[in-house]
């Protein structure tokens, strides 16, 4: 019974921890990079804010509208990317996020996709701004 619940609809303990106590929630004023992905019509919308120093992510915050795994993956991706070089952070994939959370139900994999996408969007925004400044 429990196994079925876990694989059919259930979340790992880690997902639930990040859902109940998400890390790095909020917005950053004047961020060095900002990314927004998803759409409320589809049920998921994420905003990612980063502060960058010497191409390293020093501060990262998010806001998410969506289901439990959308919130958990947002929280996890911020934890993973914090302190990382932006080029390394760009390499974080949806599977990396899901793996760090001890897995996601198959139909929820798109949520982790969104979290990584939001991070990538924020980094690309940072890079575009940087290039623009030069």
């Amino acid at each position, binding site marked *: 019974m429990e196994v079925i619940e876990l694989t059919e609809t259930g979340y790992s303990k880690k997902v*639930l921890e990040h859902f*109940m106590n*998400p890390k790095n929630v909020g917005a950053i004023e004047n961020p060095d990079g900002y990314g927004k992905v998803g759409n409320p019509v589809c*049920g998921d919308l994420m905003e990612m804010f980063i502060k960058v120093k010497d191409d390293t992510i020093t501060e990262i915050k998010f*806001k*998410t*509208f969506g289901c*439990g795994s*959308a919130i958990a993956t947002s929280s996890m991706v911020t934890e993973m990317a914090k302190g990382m070089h932006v080029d390394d952070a760009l390499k974080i994939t949806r599977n990396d996020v899901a793996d760090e959370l001890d897995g996601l139900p198959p139909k929820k994999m798109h949520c982790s996709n969104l979290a990584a996408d939001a991070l990538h969007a924020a980094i690309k925004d940072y890079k575009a701004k940087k290039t623009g400044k030069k």
Partner: protein
Amino acid sequence: MERIYLDHASASPVDPRVLEYAEQYLKLRFGNPSTLHSKGLEAKKALEDARGKITELINAESESSIIFTSGATESNNLAIKGAAMRNIQKGKKVAASTIEHISVLNPIKELQKSGWEFNLIPVDSTGLVDTEKMNAILTEDTTVVSIMYANNEIGTIQPISEISRVVHEKSLYLHVDATAAGGRIPVDVQNDGIDLLTLSSNDMYGPQGAGALYVKPGVKLQPILPGGGQERGLRSGTENIFTIAGMGEAARIAKNEMVEESRRLEKMRDKLIEEILRIEESYLTGHPTQRLPHHASFRFSRIEGESILLNLDMGYNIQVSTGSACTSRTLEPSHVLLAIGLKHEEAHGSMIITLGRSNKIDEIPRIAKGVKETVERLRKLSPL
């Protein structure tokens, strides 16, 4: 923290009195009602007693109007496919409201593949069937019209007598899915003018795995499960006596206690609605007054329903339901919420509470606090 279970439309605990009555049919009186020895006759008696109790609950003409099935899904399938196929000479059209349960809509879609026409009957923003539009849609060729007695997601109760009048002006049969209404509000198949009626055991505190279909005398059906010819040939298969006996006893208790219990739950429901609507940007879904006594459904803007469900479960030990896409198999929001005119982003933020026998009025402050804090927390996380 003690559990507060508020999702009785999804599953209800078996009433202890029902279990006490029915368990003898698992342990001791295990016979096959089709056999002629004493063990078989014991089971046969249980089966017919149960039929009698269902007959009384819905004021059917006689016991022979009741067919036992495996549940509401099978009853809906038998009613719709069975009536459509048996009465094909009358026409190949079937109609149903846009807010019917998936176990009504999908059998009709299957008929569509075999050449039947499927007409959808719209509802208004409170979920009430628009009888004028329905009248314009129905024709002499329409063999089955399926309208639910009350909706499981928004609680709206349909004016079934009025609907029956409109249906029978032109069309053949009215099928009513009373899964959510049965045992909760008075259902009188003769007075309401119903030809086929679906009932579910678990929705009235009976065991899961039993359902019934009322078939008005003279209504013609083709079986969808051919075999040994049990249940007047309409539903073959050895009867599941334990669940059927349980359903019968559940129906008997529901009928006896309906007036008092619905009054108690209505009071609790109204207080709950009052408390929850204090939350900013919260809205009631469904009809404000024509609704099931145990049903309170809402939507909250800027947040998503699965998060509400999880947060209430983990943080407050309160179990609710939602029509959000994230909890469905298809990742589409509830077709019911879309049918009453909600936008996708509005439908995502839905929360459904269905009260039951175990709920007490003094639970309301904890529920109201839990919902309020949940909505506030999720809104803080939300970029909208």
